[in-house]
């Protein structure tokens, strides 16, 4: 018996248990039968176990080089190092589907384990929805896209992995992105459960918020790693190309971001319930759409590593999901009345509305641009492409307004803010922004759009730092030193200050995007040994090409020196790697040297023998800020998500008691707050 047989058995078992869970959970909920619900919970855990077993079986097939398994033979070879062999697990369609299903089952198990925290009435329906999605994926895996199919004769060696994927970024980017897609299922399951039971209360909101935050953070990591991978592997000097598949990954991220903001309005003010439901459903539908798009190849993309007719099944699944959710939604619509009224546009909820409009607008523009070639081909029989110039022109202004709103938001109070207070809070950031705008032309930045962009970023960064500073001052007046005050602010109000951290990260990122978009310098020159090229203050001297042959690959590199003024900065070796089975698809080895906040990006475009090379150089200012900003955003996301410690929960219990006492008299609370002040 092979490992792959074990995998097939595990998949079949998982199908059975997933279907059983759906049945038992729904029956248990309808009949109020606790034993049935509990049995469904255990069955979710069994599904997770089966999926884990199946995944281990596939991994073992890879590591033991069992080339009798078609999938293993097509995606790995004997010469590959063990880490790429393991990463080949998700190098193709079957494996990435298995990975998707595995992650979904693990998240479902995690949900079951922590289900005591979720509203009890929702739990069975959440499980049933999750297992419904899981069942679809396992059915795909056992029928049309089975990774364990064996061929009669095993080849002696496999084909190896696509060279573009043979990169350290590949080890982490696809699994994070697939996990991000998958993780939108949990909020979706909560939404379905809430609509089925009609319990759309604040408890539901709290439960769904943390899951969405987790999904958002995972998706952010996936997107940033994807950009990083593109920058380091693809060799066109950029990190985001508005490729249809990149867009598909961005879409649920945008709607989830919108949700995370509008959910705060619902939490505090009881408004926007309907809208929040729409956003949750939309996020999940878009993540399924993304999977469909990658797999169907309907829209041409750089990510066309693998596609087949499996796209049709996903399309059907997507339609079923949207129909089911819409019908439920319309059925529940009458119940979703806002609890409170809107006071003023000049308030934090007003800015949140604007934020939602912008984010959903961006999502729509991206979706529209992605689908337009298809629409155009169908309706006007005209092939056309929608590329970066379109997205830059549409998204640029929206992003600028979004960043501006991000700066104004924290300056506004809930319900309403007097204009006087707003002016007062805005004066410092606005003055700093004006200073920035005035100084930049002196430094030689005369591009008006870039200048406006930088000024907006300054405004927002100043507004956030100012807000932090004011918070610190308040605590300082309570007798804390400034560093401690900062620590306490972050420690106690994670959501709020974690959110600011994310905003600061985004500002960094936008500064990097503006820098690389407006000030990139590109040049390509064909050089002979001893010749040099000058690009934006850097001088590159070419020495010659080096050819190195290894068992499974041949590597050609050019040797160059980087000079800045009269100082030698070092040697670089941009090159190409030819893998044995993919001779016509050389992978690029791009040399990226960072000087301060500027990347010198050198790419070997063409070569001739040992003594001639065409070198393409990009000088990318501020690109490192994109990565730092991304890192800060992810840290902020994790910070928001991180569970509050038990101590805080204990305090909440105390607080509940204190809250009860408020009714009895003010003296009690006064004494209590006095105690708090001495404690703080």
């Amino acid at each position, binding site marked *: 018996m092979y490992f792959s047989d074990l995998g097939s058995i595990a998949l079949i078992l998982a199908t059975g248990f997933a279907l059983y869970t759906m049945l038992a959970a729904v029956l248990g909920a309808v009949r109020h039968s606790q034993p049935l619900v509990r049995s469904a919970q255990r069955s979710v855990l069994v599904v997770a176990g089966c999926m884990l077993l199946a995944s281990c079986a596939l991994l073992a097939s890879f590591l033991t080089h069992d080339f009798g398994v078609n999938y293993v033979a097509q995606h790995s070879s004997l010469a590959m190092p063990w880490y790429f062999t393991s990463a080949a697990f998700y190098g193709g369609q079957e494996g990435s589907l298995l990975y998707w299903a595995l992650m979904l089952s693990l998240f479902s198990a995690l949900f079951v384990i922590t289900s005591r925290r979720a509203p009890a009435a929702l739990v069975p329906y959440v499980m049933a929805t999750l297992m419904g999605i899981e069942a679809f994926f396992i059915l795909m895996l056992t029928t049309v896209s089975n990774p364990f199919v064996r061929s009669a004769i095993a080849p002696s060696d496999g084909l190896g992995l696509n060279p573009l994927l043979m990169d350290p970024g590949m080890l982490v980017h696809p699994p994070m992105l697939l996990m991000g897609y998958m993780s939108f299922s949990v909020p979706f399951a909560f939404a379905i459960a809430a609509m089925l039971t009609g319990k759309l209360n604040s408890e539901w909101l709290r439960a769904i918020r943390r899951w969405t935050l987790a999904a958002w953070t995972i998706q952010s990591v996936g997107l940033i790693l994807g950009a990083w991978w593109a920058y380091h592997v693809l060799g066109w000097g950029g990190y985001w190309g508005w490729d249809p598949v990149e867009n598909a990954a961005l879409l649920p991220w945008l709607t989830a971001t919108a949700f995370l903001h509008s959910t705060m309005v619902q939490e505090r003010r009881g408004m926007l319930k309907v809208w929040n439901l729409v956003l949750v459903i939309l996020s999940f539908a878009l993540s399924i759409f993304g999977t469909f798009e990658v797999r169907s190849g309907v829209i041409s993309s750089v990510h066309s590593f693998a596609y087949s007719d499996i796209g049709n099944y996903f399309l059907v699944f997507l339609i079923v999901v949207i129909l089911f959710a819409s019908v439920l939604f319309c059925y529940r619509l009458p119940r979703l009345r806002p609890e409170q009224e809107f006071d*003023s546009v000049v308030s934090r909820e007003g800015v949140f509305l*604007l934020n939602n409009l912008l984010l959903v607008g961006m999502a729509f523009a991206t979706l529209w641009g992605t689908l*337009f070639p298809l629409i155009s081909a169908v309706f006007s029989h005209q092939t056309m492409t*929608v590329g970066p110039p379109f997205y830059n022109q549409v998204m640029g202004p929206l992003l600028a307004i979004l960043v501006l709103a991000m700066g104004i938001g924290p300056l506004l109070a809930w319900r309403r803010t007097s204009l006087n207070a707003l*002016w*007062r809070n805005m004066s410092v950031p606005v003055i700093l922004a004006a200073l920035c705008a005035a100084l930049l032309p002196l430094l030689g930045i005369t591009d008006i759009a870039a200048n406006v962009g930088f000024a907006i970023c300054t405004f927002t960064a100043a507004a956030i730092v100012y807000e932090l500073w004011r918070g610190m001052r308040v605590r300082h007046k309570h007798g804390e030193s400034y560093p401690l005050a900062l620590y306490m602010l972050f420690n106690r109000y994670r959501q709020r200050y974690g959110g600011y951290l994310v905003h600061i990260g985004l500002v960094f990122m936008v500064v990097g995007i503006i820098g690389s978009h407006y000030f990139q310098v590109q040049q390509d020159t064909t050089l002979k040994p001893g010749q040099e090229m000058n690009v934006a203050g850097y001088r590159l001297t070419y020495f010659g090409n080096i050819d190195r042959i290894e068992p499974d690959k041949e590597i050609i590199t050019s040797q160059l020196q980087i000079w800045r003024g009269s100082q030698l900065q070092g040697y670089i070796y941009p090159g190409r790697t030819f893998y044995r089975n993919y001779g016509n698809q050389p992978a690029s080895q791009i040399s990226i040297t960072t000087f301060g906040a500027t990347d010198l990006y050198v790419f070997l475009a063409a070569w001739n023998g040992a003594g001639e090379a065409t070198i393409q150089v990009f000088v990318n200012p501020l690109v490192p800020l994109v990565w730092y900003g991304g890192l800060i955003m992810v840290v902020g996301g994790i910070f928001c998500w991180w569970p509050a410690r038990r101590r805080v929960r204990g305090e909440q219990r105390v607080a509940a008691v204190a809250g009860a006492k408020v009714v009895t008299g003010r003296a009690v609370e006064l004494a209590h707050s006095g105690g*708090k002040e001495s404690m703080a």
Partner: protein
Amino acid sequence: MKRSFLLVLAAVALLAALASSLILATPKPPTVDQRVQSIASQLKCPVCQGESVADSSAQLALQMRQRIRQDVQAGKSDQEIIQFFVDRYGASIAWSPPWQGFSLLAWLVPIVLLLAGCWLLYAVVREWRRSEPVVTERVGSFDAVGSGEREDDELARYRAQLEQELAEDDVIFKRAGTEVR
């Protein structure tokens, strides 16, 4: 509190003056390199996946860049050069849809929908406000203070706002003085 308003106004005026001076100042004519780069980035490399002619290192893209350079030096306009490539390789080489015919929709639909969204937002907000009976006077009262003890005063006000917001997560933080509801 007129002062802060005037400060903001002054800063905005400075920004506006700066922006207009930047716009009105005679812009430097773009160099040949910049023009080649900008034209090439409008064109999709026909033999690559998702790369522009400007970024691609393919042989064809190299030749196309040379061709663009020749045309720029010969004094052709950006439009003429792009049109030349569109005629030769078909409409799909232009990387952003042209502002004409069916592909106008690509531009108009997002813009129209965004404007519709703004209008919808406005309508919804107006609807919400109309049905709203009482406006609580809270922040307004804070503004009726002299500027003499402004520092402390501002602090107190901010503290009130911050603590009130924080109090919703953590009741312990609530202080009697800042209780509003």
